[in-house]
């Protein structure tokens, strides 16, 4: 009998062992009074900059140690959502405008409104960190704009003047044509992208993607339609590859292999491009986006500006400490460290030149970037964006490949966004 019991027990124990999944508890707090915090980011290129900031904090507060963890962009959101469901969010994490409303509106994020000096941040930076209720759910980290990147070598070969602030869409077309005629390489590479593509053109032309209160799309507006027609129509020129081409290689790849002379790039990618491709030094240059020649409204200038923020979860047992860290991250000192590392343009006003200084070793002039913030437009977003984003991009691809007409495609986009936004 005794033997039997023993056997049963061992069997049960074995079964239990097999079934126990490895737990993944967070490890904050330890015996010697040191608090260990986790800090989750998605860009490995910015890890040194983030680490430098954390080290600066630890120097002042030796009892707080912050560990920077990186997960790639794609798995980042899957991971973060799973962590949110399991109530195991990292202590501090990057938040993106695409997702912040979803997290903030569902009560996942802590209100951090009183941690920063709001007058040191631009209206757009603050908006990018707000929930639908207008409170701040993140400390603004950085800001970016979209700029025109061009290959100076190809311009020289074709004898075309470099792009400047006076450029309009017409100049973009004529320069592209001249480069194509002279060198056989592509000119401006227009492709199916929102933030790096048609959004800019729509806002330049006085149109909009979402209306003021973010409840309706603007694809039924003549200004929007006109800009979409122009942008999508660019692929019919010989100097622009069609969308099938971009289905196989990104415009950035085509640019660095010298296949095309111009494309739109976010400021966050400029330094990594130069660091990873030293042969581009001197060739890669930036300019402001060309303006709409005769916009329906406005002065024809616009560029999409986005920004990240640092967020913390709504229930953290080290709440006070984490808040203090976030307060530091939003301070001039930490934002300066971030800028000088070249990671991104600090959200803190007046520190743009710290980011520009990271380019000193390269033959590139980025001093014009700061001026673009003056006419920048906040990146398009509402709470149902995750729901409509991929559906709208499917429609765009269908327009590109002639599976639906432009009118029909835009009408579909309109109803997709309107229906999703209605809840």
């Amino acid at each position, binding site marked *: 009998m005794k033997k039997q019991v023993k056997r049963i027990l061992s*069997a049960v124990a074995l079964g239990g062992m*097999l079934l126990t999944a490895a737990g993944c508890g967070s490890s904050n707090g330890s015996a010697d009074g040191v608090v260990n915090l986790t800090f989750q980011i998605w860009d490995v290129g910015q890890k040194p900059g983030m680490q430098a900031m954390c080290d600066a904090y630890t120097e002042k507060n030796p009892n707080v140690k912050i560990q920077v963890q990186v997960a790639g962009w794609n798995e980042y959101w899957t991971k973060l959502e799973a962590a949110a469901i399991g109530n195991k969010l990292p202590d501090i994490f990057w938040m993106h405008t695409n997702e912040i409303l979803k997290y903030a*509106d569902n009560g996942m994020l802590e209100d951090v409104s009183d941690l920063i000096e709001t007058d040191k941040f631009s209206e757009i930076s603050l908006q990018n960190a707000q929930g639908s209720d207008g409170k701040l759910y993140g400390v603004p980290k950085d800001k970016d704009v979209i700029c025109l990147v061009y290959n100076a070598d190809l311009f020289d070969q074709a004898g075309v003047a470099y792009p400047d602030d006076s450029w309009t869409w017409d100049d973009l077309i004529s320069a592209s044509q001249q480069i194509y005629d002279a060198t056989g390489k592509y000119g401006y590479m227009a492709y*199916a*992208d929102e933030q790096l593509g048609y959004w800019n053109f729509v806002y330049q032309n006085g149109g909009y993607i979402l209306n003021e209160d973010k409840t309706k799309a603007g694809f039924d507006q003549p200004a929007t339609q006109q800009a979409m027609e122009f942008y999508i129509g660019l692929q019919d020129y010989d100097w622009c590859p069609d969308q*099938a081409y*971009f*289905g196989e290689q990104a415009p950035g790849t085509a640019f660095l292999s010298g296949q095309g002379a111009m494309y739109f790039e976010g400021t966050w990618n400029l330094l990594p491009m130069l660091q990873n491709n030293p042969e581009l030094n001197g060739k890669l240059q930036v300019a402001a986006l060309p303006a709409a020649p005769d916009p329906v409204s406005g002065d024809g200038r616009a560029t999409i500006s986005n920004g990240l923020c640092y967020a913390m979860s709504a229930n953290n047992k080290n709440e006070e400490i984490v808040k203090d860290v976030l307060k530091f991250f939003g301070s001039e000192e930490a934002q300066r460290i971030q800028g000088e590392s070249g990671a991104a343009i600090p959200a803190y006003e007046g520190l743009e030149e710290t980011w520009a200084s990271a380019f000193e070793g390269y033959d590139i002039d980025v001093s014009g970037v700061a001026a673009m913030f003056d006419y920048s437009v906040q990146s398009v977003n509402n709470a149902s964006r995750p729901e409509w984003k991929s559906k709208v991009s499917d429609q765009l691809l269908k327009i590109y490949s002639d599976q639906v007409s432009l009118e029909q495609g835009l009408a579909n986009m309109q109803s997709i966004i309107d229906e999703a936004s209605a809840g």
Partner: protein
Amino acid sequence: MNSKKRNRSDMFWGYLMVAPTILGLLILNIYPFIETFIRSLSKTKAFGKYEFQGLMNYQEMFTSEEFWKATWNSIWFCVLTVPVGIFLALLLAVLLNAKIAGRGIFRTIYFLPMVVAPAAVAMVWKWMFNAEFGIINSIFGTEIRWLTDPKIVLITCAVVSIWSSVGYDAILLLSGIQNISPYYYEAASLDGAGKVKQFFCITVPMVSPTLFVVIIMRLMASLRVYDLIYMMVDQANPALTDAQSLMYLFYRESFIAGNKGYGSAIVIWTVFLIAIVTALQFIGQKKWVNYEV
């Protein structure tokens, strides 16, 4: 009385022995399946919350053009891969069974694709099929858009799928072929049957039980294809909707659009589809699978 008691005690030990597996199945397979089914009847809200709403997801699914396109793509992918793939695997198995020099090396070579990570396979083939710079277009001097032409893209994926699975299937079939007694072939050749006749009249019927298993496995795998197409066909590819399989659609709905309820409905539909196809095969096998040796 005594035997009954003993019987019960045996049963107890029997259940105890299979308990870990059964528990594992219940927790890791059965429970998620039920959960998926419930989700398919629910509206998904953020962060794992959901709300029962009946058949709404199914209604939306069955009226969606995209969904039927994906179903058709999955079926078309099976049609493209299974018959050709199985035939090549069988042919290969027979050839690998022949007494040729370096047989072991050939067997290893054909099996190799199975050992390579599917993502790596797709990446390399993607480069080879690249319309602008790919080796395939440059060798044949063609300008075919292998990955972006809506009519061709699934055929391209099918070629890669066949390439990566044919070796594995061949090894399975080879084990079946090796069980065939050589006397059959001896007798057949004495009666004047040629190699081709022997293949169809001896090899195919005798290997049919293994062949049946291989076909079922390959069909299921093809209906569930995801990773290969995901790797080969970028989200920015204009031929995306013409290559999107059911599982790809499921991924995009559940994890990109965040609509897990709708995604669950797609999964349930796929299970249903696989069940029908498998049931049909079990009925059909009576006509051609030979279990007498």
